């Protein structure tokens, strides 16, 4: 089963939920941190990293000996990543989406592919928990291809927990597609509610069942709960604001490390999700 943890708004507690859930279960679990722009789960899990892999995406390289300057490559490219200018071909690797169109269209077979580094994937373990995350190279704009590579580490038959980035655009979609359940983490504030509605919109487009965790549930107002009721989205957990939790988080400690009694609540959260997923199937 795949559970994606998303939010819309940033800083609502996705990583807190993902990491605490991952360490509270007795079953086989893997945690994929797909917030490749700013991955944080490793700061709490502190896994022993066993493998580091550099991930590249194919980008064109032109052999000017073979090139006839016909310009077809520039014509097919939708991303302005390749263009014939005077007697040369300019390639802008950073703009390339790796579709391979220029290589396909080149009548002289003058284009081959080389790689642009997207970032790295690190894989490790802690206490039987399998951990994988991607780290986008600073300066690289495109995160979805790296997210998809991290998701290739999904092992069927066990529970996969995905820590998604904030927002509702392509990187978040890349983290939700194919999930069995999306757990939305929000806070009961106008910003939290506004962005939650966008996230729910994304989940609906994908047709995935979802549920809510309300973090810092006693700040703000009750509009999130009213919305959840209207939309028939189950509230699966509420975490009141507690300075002990905030301080533990600031030091890189999980809730269950400072308050072990929460383990049971996270285990219960998982069972509720399981029930929803199975009743949907």
């Amino acid at each position, binding site marked *: 089963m795949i559970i994606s943890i998303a939010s819309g708004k940033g800083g609502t507690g996705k990583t807190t939920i993902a990491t605490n859930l991952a360490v509270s279960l007795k079953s086989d679990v893997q945690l994929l941190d797909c917030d490749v722009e700013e991955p944080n789960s490793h700061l709490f899990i502190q896994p022993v990293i066993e493998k580091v892999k550099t991930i590249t995406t194919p980008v064109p390289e032109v052999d000017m000996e073979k090139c006839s300057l016909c310009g077809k490559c520039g014509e097919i490219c939708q991303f302005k990543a390749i263009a014939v200018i005077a007697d040369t071909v300019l390639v802008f690797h950073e703009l390339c989406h790796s579709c391979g169109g220029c290589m396909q269209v080149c009548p002289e077979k003058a284009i081959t592919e080389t790689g642009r580094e997207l970032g790295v994937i690190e894989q490790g373990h802690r206490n039987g928990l399998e951990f994988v995350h991607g780290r986008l190279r600073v300066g690289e704009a*495109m995160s979805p291809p790296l997210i998809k590579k991290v998701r290739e580490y999904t092992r069927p038959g066990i529970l996969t927990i995905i820590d998604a980035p904030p927002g509702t655009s392509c990187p978040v979609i890349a983290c939700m597609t194919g999930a069995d359940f999306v757990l939305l983490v929000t806070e009961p504030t106008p910003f939290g509610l506004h962005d939650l509605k966008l996230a729910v919109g994304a989940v609906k487009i994908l047709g995935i069942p979802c549920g809510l965790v309300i973090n810092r549930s006693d700040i703000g107002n009750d509009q999130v709960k009213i919305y959840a009721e209207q939309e028939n989205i189950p509230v699966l957990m509420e975490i009141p604001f507690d300075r002990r939790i905030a*301080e533990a988080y600031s030091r890189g400690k999980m809730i269950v490390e400072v308050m072990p009694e929460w383990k049971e609540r996270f285990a219960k959260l998982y069972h509720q999700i399981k029930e929803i997923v199975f009743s949907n199937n």
Partner: protein
Amino acid sequence: MHHYLRALLQAVFHEPDPNSRVLLRELNRKTKGNTGIIAMKEIVIISGKGGTGKTSIIAAFASLAKSKVLCDADVDAADLHLITKPEIKEKHDFESGHTAIINQDKCSECGLCRDLCRWNAISEDFVVNFIECEGCGVCYYFCPEKAIDFPLNTCGEWYLSETRFGPMAHARLHIAEENSGKLVALIRQEGKKLAEKRHINLLLTDGPPGIGCPVIASLGGATAVLIVAEPTVSGRHDMERVVELAAFFKIPAMVCVNKFDLNPDQGKAIEVFAREKNIGVIGRVPFDPAFTRAMVQGKTIVEFDSQSEGCKAVKGVWENLAQSLEI
């Protein structure tokens, strides 16, 4: 005179060269500001990590800065409008990118498109999954039956508005859409145009979280970025990456630590890191529930409670920022 010309050119292209700003000031002084040249400045607020308080802080700045255009470049999950309550004066569609659509009547099911598509976006029965489609147009280009359409997408809207703080440029990317970077670049450009038209020389831009495409699009040509960090291990980790990003694009950066008292050791560590990287540390903001209460009422903290600790601290940050950028 060529120094002034360079300064002028750099002002036009919003290049963040401190030397050019000094020269421009000199030029404006010598001509008593009669050149009509406005040295427009843009401050972009970013954070790396989400939820550190970017929008609450920029909303406070909106109350504090005398003359400015507001720009919400967090197009993916824009929130600033919840405080500024803009009255929309102009509304435009944002069109960008294409999606392939297979015309089943013309399709001979030869399978070439499926072979060429690198996104696995075409199903066995030749239907394009619009979420997976990257808009590369390879299938459209090569289809022997010309059975594939490739229409332009409308993937959002952008607005020019009036608020009680002054003009505002903002946008909304449709859910699950791409090209957020292009919309960010567009909305900043529109913000600048709006400022020029109104003879306003300050643009306050609320940036997106992360370090990817939309953030990169929010940095180019900015005068400076203000990084709002939070004193947690995550906040520090993410701030370090965003500092690296600003350096990569050669944009001067400043930092303020929000909710400082939550973990003063982490807060200080962030400040030490910033100083090592020659980044100005321009203030500390305490954890203050007044920020949330202000947000619930749709107010800036300055409007909500100007005597609150949070408000006093943000005022200090704003004064330091204004002084260092000579606003």
